[in-house]
């Protein structure tokens, strides 16, 4: 039982520390700034905003 509780506590600690670390990393690395450009970051030069990337839509619109 003691081993089990220790394992759970270690995993809880690691998980919590990991999540808090990821959150603070995101905050200090401008991940919560310039949100508009972040939303547009998935578009490329050949698949820009305004261009559907499913050929079935392109052919019918």
């Amino acid at each position, binding site marked *: 039982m003691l081993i089990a509780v220790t394992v759970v506590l270690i995993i809880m600690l690691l998980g919590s520390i990991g999540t808090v670390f990821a959150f603070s990393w995101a905050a200090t690395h401008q991940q919560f700034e310039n949100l508009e450009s972040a939303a547009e970051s998935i578009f490329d*030069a050949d698949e820009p905003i305004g261009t559907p990337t*499913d050929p079935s839509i392109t052919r019918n619109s």
Partner: protein
Amino acid sequence: MSSENALKPDAAAIEESRLQRLEIDRAARWPVGIFLGSSLFWLLLGSALAIAASIKLHDPEFLAENAWLTFGRVRPAHLNIVVYGWLSTAGIGIGLWILSRLCRAPIRDHRSLTLAAVLWNMGNAVGTWGILRGDSTAVEWLEYPTYAAPFLLVCFAFVTLEAVGLIRRRPPGHIYISQWYIMAAFFWFPALYFTAHGLLILAPVQAPAQPPINWWFAHNVLGLWFTPIGLGAVYYLIPKIIGRPIHSYYLSIIGFWSLAFFYAWNGMHHLIGGPFPAWLITASVVASIMMFIPVITVAINHHFTMVGHFKKTIYSPTLRFVVFGAMCYTLASFQGSSMAIRSLNGITHFTHYTIAHAHLGVYGFATMVFFGSIYYIMPRLLEREWPSRFLIRIHFWSCALGFIGYWSFLSWGGVLQGIELNQKDTPFLEIVALTMPYLKLRTISGSLMTLGHVAFAISFCWMIIRHRASDGEPTLFTKRVPDPAPIHE
């Protein structure tokens, strides 16, 4: 004029971008293709076992003479095959592909990932064999015997290492919300699986502590594994397909971090009424109600991103599946939070209503989003189009109608069952008889869903063995309107 001279400066950028994506898709072809292809095998096997289990509920003599096919083995085999064989296998493939695309970095070590895919499938095969031969652990959602776990562990080590490598090789700048979701899922799932496996099977804790660990695991598999992979896919596919950024990136961030911080508390609401500390259950009920925050942010984002574009679901198979799945996500989450309210839980607990709810999450949401994702990914991996519009139509309508029927019948039957279970004077066998019509309708609905899966598998195999390269003709839900060039490569 040579093609070089013909390129304007921005045309060069366009060409560079196209070639980079082509390189990424080609590097992903084998590992992602194996994950996606093998997931379909498990989908078909899981569906066959689901129908067998469903028939046994209203016709207990069906296949009862063979010990391997008794309800106590078929039902957990179905559950584990669908969770680990279909959804997890497809989820790994989809997650890796989207991560690779968003990191703008090709998968580097495709050999180890291919080996990972083989190991994952071996783990599923060994686990399924173990359950059917009677070696089940009898821990719900973790029924695979211990000897299946090492295969899954090694596979996930390869997958997570490659995912970390992709993130490290990305160009500097923002990490898009889908990357956050998928990366987190690749860490959360192995932590969940191996913690629960260790504490429940390898070195079991004392009996009273087992149900909380079991439901902490089972609930989080949905919320911290399928949900982030599914939402990561939705946040990537909807904007890419319609060519419009998500409505509010700010809301998407709130959605992700509230899921990360609070979801893990949810599972204890499965134990309402059980012999557990009151604070444990109450904390879980509160966390379940708090889930309205990430769900509403996601729902607003999905809906307002799609506003003005819903008509495109007429044409695009991917969009139709993904939008259907996204709507089911909202519905499943609202329903799940409401089921944590004690008064409602007192009726729905131990009834078919819970089964309907579980299928709303894993089928209506996760499975439909994964179908849509595969429709988007495969033509880019193989550089050829889906072979048959007819098969895609059969796939969508069989699955959608079958699922709507399944969920509606079981929800309604479950509520009636729950009301009667709370009447102390109603004989139990009367309640069993009351649920019979709903169980038969469940079998019919499930068979319809399976028909869709068969159509999908035929379509998938046909696409692979057809050696003709894409002629640019897209596979539509409706008849083609003539127009310009193919756009994906």
